């Protein structure tokens, strides 16, 4: 082709950051860095426990409804079931994952619901306590049943 191209050799567009007085992100509300990394981690943990629940809850339900003739187990069957090491691991795994998953799920609903970081922090604390109590209760119950 003849002559130089009439088109510019590089983009005319500059980011607004090139303009004086502009601070990137100045207009975007944000929370502190620790909270940020927590938000991402919580999503991951929720997904991971979700996947584990497919395994643990599946085992639990099948064991509950389909292993024993007539569906539900009587007391002795429950104890016998729990004495099996695989069952024990599966049930304790279910206990932990279901509590973590439920706690994160309830908290996610509250993120939509509660105005402001302070209310959310308080709610998170309460949910955490309920989760801990549930966990201790569940483990305690298992030990009592196995011991009895």
């Amino acid at each position, binding site marked *: *082709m*003849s*002559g*130089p*191209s*009439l*088109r*510019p050799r590089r983009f*005319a*567009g*500059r980011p*607004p950051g090139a*303009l004086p007085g*502009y601070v990137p992100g100045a*207009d975007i509300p944000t929370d502190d860095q620790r909270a940020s990394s927590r938000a991402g981690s919580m999503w991951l943990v929720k997904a991971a426990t979700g996947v584990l629940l497919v395994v643990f809850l599946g085992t639990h339900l099948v064991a509950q409804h389909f292993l024993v003739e007539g569906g539900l187990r009587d007391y002795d069957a429950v104890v016998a079931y729990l004495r099996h090491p695989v069952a024990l691991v599966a049930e304790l795994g279910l206990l932990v994952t279901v509590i973590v998953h439920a706690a994160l799920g309830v908290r996610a609903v509250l993120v939509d619901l509660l105005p402001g970081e302070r209310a959310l922090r308080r709610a998170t604390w309460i949910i955490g306590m309920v989760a801990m109590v549930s966990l201790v209760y569940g483990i305690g119950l298992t030990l009592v049943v196995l011991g009895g």
Partner: protein
Amino acid sequence: MAFVSPSSQPQALIIGAGSTGAAVAHDLAMRGIGVTVVERGEIASGTTGRNHGLLHSGGRYAVRDAESAIECRVERDILACIAAEILELNGGLFVALDEEDLAYREPFLAACERAGIPTRDLSAGEARELEPALSARVLAAVEVPDGVFDPLHLCLAFLATAQANGATIRPYAEVEELVVAGSSVEGAVVRDRRTGRRATVRADIVVNAAGPWAGYIAAMAGVDVPVVPTAGVMVAVAGRFVDRVINRLNAPSDGDIVVPQRRSVVIGTSSWTVDDPDRVTIPAAHVELMLERGAELVPLIRGAEGRGVFAASRPLIGRTADLESGRELSRTFECFDHSAEDVHGFVTISGGKTTTARAMAEATADVVCRHLQVDEPGRTAVVPLRSYRDYYRA
């Protein structure tokens, strides 16, 4: 050194926030004048918004109207410096499809050279290599530095810069009447269309930049401006078939421009005068014509999905010779200083194109500054505009 308190700052009220009003606001604010812009609707909701968005290199006017061509060429280069962020500077092609077009090529190249518009001669093959969607009938093409802008965002950039220099922008504010005391205009009664509340905005000078509606505003001051609203149809179809503006290499006529806009192309335009710019009925025949002539240049336009049909009313100046008071700045736009008709503090700016809005604004601001006895030169040609996004920060 005299201390200038804010209250003694001269105040200008600008009516209309199309490209002209926005550019005038920017220019005046930069010269230290207190600026209030009132606009009846959203920014650029009148003629400017419904623009095809062609940043003229001047090529389109080179043969018939050298003055306009030079003005476009100069302003295109200035905008490319001060507002590069909101322009697509891909260039444009003037495409010859028949022998008549080919005969136009020599005078076109000569006129461009006279106007200082850079050109590049392309063979049919070269043109289709640049723009594969061009018609296979292309015989030759000339490349010029056309570009594309988005009218709203250009206005917002002007206004954002004006705001940064202290201007107040009031959209949805409709002028109901001008405040006239004796022989001078001292402001306007403005109704906020959002709340229905009325307020009086006082100013030392009122600039009427209402485009095709300028006649209505001027009538409120008892003066006549010969604005003839002249509508033009544009048709948008889905598909970004070209990156460059495609013009027919011939004398400007209907349906001879195809402008890429985002993921569509806009084909323009036609021309007919209308009585009321608020009530424009688009003739079906014009739409057909746009599609037909557009498809001659870019065949994919035929069969493309429609993406909107719209019309803008250009504020063309009807008569000039008999207007003694008018200070003719150029054949393309006019700034009417109504003090010659013994109406003081009132200036009307009309005509022109969005590409040349900055120059129109500078000429208008010169007139305004003379009235206000402000001795500041215009600097809008060299100071970059702020990001259009800054408009929302205010």
